[in-house]
């Protein structure tokens, strides 16, 4: 698996609720940015559910894509 890991590693976008993560998935799909919904890493947040993981190199594109809607984004951070 680690051989597939992007050079700059991963980032995650965390949302107040999974509705935000699902909305983000739509926006990232539309923008053609590779991503994956993953369980919220427990050491980062106490929310249940899932968040969005992406290649950290895409950080700016991700933030740009998510800015168009009020998804309740809590944090975008390096994993």
């Amino acid at each position: 698996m680690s051989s597939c890991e992007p050079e700059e590693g991963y980032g995650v976008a965390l949302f107040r609720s999974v509705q935000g993560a699902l909305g983000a998935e739509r926006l990232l799909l539309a923008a053609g940015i590779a991503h994956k919904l993953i369980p919220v890493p427990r050491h980062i947040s106490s929310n249940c559910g899932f968040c969005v993981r992406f290649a950290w190199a895409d950080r700016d594109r991700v933030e740009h894509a998510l800015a168009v809607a009020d998804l309740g984004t809590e944090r975008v951070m390096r994993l």
Partner: protein
Amino acid sequence: MIYFDNAATSWPKPEAVPKAMGRFLGEHGANPGRSGHALSIQAGRVVFEARERAARLFGHGDPMSVVFTKNATEALNLALQGLLGPGDHVATSTMEHNSVLRPLRFLEGRGVEVSRVPCGADGSLDPADLARSVSVRTRLVVLSHASNVVGTLCPIAEIGELSRERDLLFCVDAAQSAGVCPIDMAAMGIDLLAFTGHKSLYGPQGTGGLCVGERARGRLRPLLHGGTGSASDSDVHPEFLPDCYEAGTLNAVGLAGLAAGLAFVEEKGVEAIRAHETALAARLIAGLREIPGVGVLGTGSAERQTAVVSFNVAGWRCSEIAEALEERAAICCRAGLHCAPLAHRQLGTFPEGAVRFSPGLFNTETEVAVAIDAVRELAARPKGGLS
């Protein structure tokens, strides 16, 4: 069998609806949004699709402020009980369903002042009458888009404009209109739109929702508090949409069906659905009106109403008509007061009520013709039930 009770619930459903529900249960029926595994994510996607489709259909940009409830009744209770408090005034009409009238009656006991604006004999509301009932203490106007008794349409856009001018919130009960009449919350000035999933959106029973517009955000107290899967480190209920109004596990299998129903409506097109139903209603109205002894309620114009056609037959009780129609012609319809006591008073049909035919998208002109013939036959032989 002729199913003419679509105003109560639509039947049959488009094939895709039970299929989507079966697929949900069989393939990914996990709890949407509580866990991080693939099945939970897939269940979440299905629910989110329903949110997106509902937002799109109602001209409501934001899927996050589509709140799912178990029906229109719960959505209306959320809007009314969530917003109104002692000293507030609310304006409504006499054509409302009990899902509006009863919460308002309850709130009256808690210090909310309610104006029930009378409608015309055909069920139509004059916006000028409504405007006169508005005072400085008015917080909300709540009206049904279409009457469930006679189908009469309310001038929603006009009242939306009035609500904006007077800085009131406007709540619309779209139980009878969603899916069959064009609705654009932004253009029509609607702040709170209550819909039910099981009528013209073709979803299963147990689905409905409230679209919360910009101006109403943060202004409703939740009806329920509980688990949402979010903010799990806190025992304080969250305040953001949609979680704040969706405590507890959603009816996700039902919403899978609703998403399929909404997709069906989008594919057919609201205008085309409306055109089909209007044609059926026009035939029904014309055919029934020609029968001696039959009195058709409402506007008499299919364009001014939905496909809800209520009538009485001289010499018969409405319940006897419904029973005879089922026995002789296998027609399923509804007789009585249709959960709208004030509407029947206004129409002059209280306490007897009326027979209601409500054809839907899957009915045909042939079925309408059969029904008209069946009524004609009954009308020719008064039973004397009313003596």
